[in-house]
């Protein structure tokens, strides 16, 4: 898991994926497989990986490099940085957190709970009341630390929890990037194309241009998805479970998935003896939404890792789900590359 650890330590808020891209290009370069990698105008990395055999269908696997975070919009006269969120972050996970910005640290907080009365003590602090404290004396000092347009991330490191659970900030979707790099670490059975996309968290924008260039027959989106199997959540609201294996989507807020691919994935999982699950709610969305509508249309499937506390500083996944997803993706290469009846 050193690869995932490294990937999660890099900062790559949407539009600023440079460090992640650089690492991915190096990792692809180091692979013994025959790989042609390029970067497009938006910053997507597209890698053609030559397999042992030629694929009948042009098959793409897609993971996004970017992560949610904060973008600085200005500073107050008394030296606090104003910010907007990049991607969907709940205000409830921001208060009291430390952030990293341009190699420095800041704190997001407010007045002491002691100075708040009654039920307001339990009230989430809305975004418009949140500022980043960089311990600056005044506006200029704050702007010396970060200018409008600079970005920040939660200060949260990679850690292993009990029972092979992994906790980090940017698991969504560095876990997907790590899976794709693992697939390319040896020569795959068939030719595949890997796309490491930018700007997923801001309207799936990188995937749109990546899909246009790749023009695939089939695209498998490898992402991280909300597992709500947490304290006090009834089973019908849990969406999916950590430990239940990779999550195969039939529908989410952006995409109605290809039913044949969906069925084939479950059959394949059964055949290779791994657990797989689906989402029990129509929620979320990923790059499939953009890719399915590329050019004249693309068949899409999603294989996601169940992840608790998504878009928080403390995303949690299970090693076993990661390992099962890798097995499944490699098996799907063989299935999808030669699948017929793709009218």
């Amino acid at each position, binding site marked *: 898991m050193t690869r995932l650890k490294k990937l999660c330590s890099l900062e790559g808020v949407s539009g600023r994926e440079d460090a992640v891209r650089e690492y991915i290009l190096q990792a692809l370069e180091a692979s013994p497989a025959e790989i042609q990698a390029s970067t497009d105008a938006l910053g997507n990395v597209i890698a053609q990986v030559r397999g042992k055999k030629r694929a009948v269908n042009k098959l793409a696997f897609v993971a996004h490099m970017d992560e949610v975070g904060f973008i600085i919009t200005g500073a*107050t006269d*008394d030296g*606090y940085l104003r910010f907007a969120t990049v991607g*969907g972050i*709940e205000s*409830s*996970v921001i*208060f*009291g*957190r*430390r952030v990293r910005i341009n190699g*420095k*640290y*800041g*704190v*997001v*907080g*407010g*007045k*002491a*709970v*002691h*100075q708040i009365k009654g*039920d307001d003590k*339990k*009230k*989430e*602090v*809305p975004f418009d*009341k949140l*500022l980043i*404290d*960089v*311990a600056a*004396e005044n506006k200029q000092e704050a702007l010396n630390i970060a200018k409008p347009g600079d970005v920040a991330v939660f*200060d*949260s490191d990679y*850690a292993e*929890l*009990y*029972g092979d*659970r992994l*906790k980090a900030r940017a698991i969504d979707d560095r876990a997907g990037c790590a899976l794709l790099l693992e697939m390319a670490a040896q020569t795959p059975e068939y030719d595949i194309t890997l796309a490491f996309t930018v700007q997923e968290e801001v309207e799936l924008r990188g995937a749109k241009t990546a899909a246009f260039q790749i023009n695939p027959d089939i695209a498998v989106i490898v992402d991280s998805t*909300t597992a*709500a199997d*947490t*304290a*006090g959540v009834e089973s019908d*609201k849990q*969406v999916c479970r950590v430990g239940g294996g990779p999550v195969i989507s039939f529908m989410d807020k952006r995409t109605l998935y290809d039913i044949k691919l969906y069925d084939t994935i479950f059959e394949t999982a059964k055949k290779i003896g791994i657990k797989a699950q689906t989402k029990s*709610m129509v*929620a*979320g969305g990923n790059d499939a939404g953009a890719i399915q509508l590329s050019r004249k249309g693309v068949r899409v499937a999603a294989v996601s890792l169940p992840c*608790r*506390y*998504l878009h*928080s*500083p*403390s995303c*949690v996944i299970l090693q076993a789900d990661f390992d099962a997803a890798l097995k499944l993706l490699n098996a799907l290469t063989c299935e999808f590359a030669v699948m017929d009846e793709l009218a």
Partner: protein
Amino acid sequence: MMDMISSLERLSNAVGVGGLTQAADEAQSMLGEFCDEIERDALGNVIGYRRCGGENARLLLLEAHIDEVGLIVTDIDDMGFIHAAPCGGVDVRALPAAEVMIFGDKPYPGVICSIPPHLKKKDDKDILPDIVDMGIDVGMNAEEAKSHIRQGSRISFKPNFTALDDYHVSGKAMDDRAGVAAILYCLDILKEQQTETDYDIAVIFAVQEELGCRGAAVSAYRVSPDYAIAVDVSFALTPDADSAKCGRLGEGAMIGRSPTLDNCMANQLVKLAEENDIPYQNEVMGGATGTDAESISDAHAGIPTALLSVPLRYMHTPSELIDIRDVQNVGRLMALFAEKGGSGL
């Protein structure tokens, strides 16, 4: 001289949630080089003495609390999530997705559950659940959790000390390791300068302040000083707070003024600060200060007590923020008081 940043790192990363002794052990070992005697009382208070050698010397108590806010395990549910009650007044707004350490048969890292957006109802959108309902994820199923963690196990925020720059540091438990550090800094000044003091000095690092200033009451009774200075943290201004009710970060030691505090001592501290160019700010409170100062001042037949505070932002969150110059100024002021304070009283 004592390196303030590394000392605060060592102190604040140690855990002192009510009942855990790691922070007290750490503070006691740092206190060792300044004291002639050190003891630990029945509740776990650390008590040290620095004798001045004078006969019938009066005794000055310097006190800071060693405990910190945290949680205590009340239940483990069928899915293995840990449920916990506050052990001190943690800021519930800072809990969702916070990282914690659970002190079971060994320390286990955990994450406090946050509610995913799709499960938020319109009407409860901005009200957080009760702490005990939030649940903490340690990655265990119920059986595993019950074998490693028990009801009563303590939970702290994950140790996370960080320096923002040369002067500002952030982390858990700056409340009140900043006070502990200020006292150690004072003792270090007295040692380095080989200052002769009028007083014997007693130091108390008190337990259970966050649960109602309990440790200070029994330890002050035991020590029975002639004068006392309690050192705690207090509110530093943030943009959303009432500026009349806050001190300012980086603007010096906060000298407490309140009906419960000794006014002569406060006057003396102000005089010393002004004479020696030590930055200070007044902190005026209309009643009880809510600190150990009250439980010290009403021990025995009463003990004149002053309160010095280090201004701090984001109290009772994992990211408490202080300026180390304020800690040093509190330490300097106490050292001056120990040296010259007697004459003014």
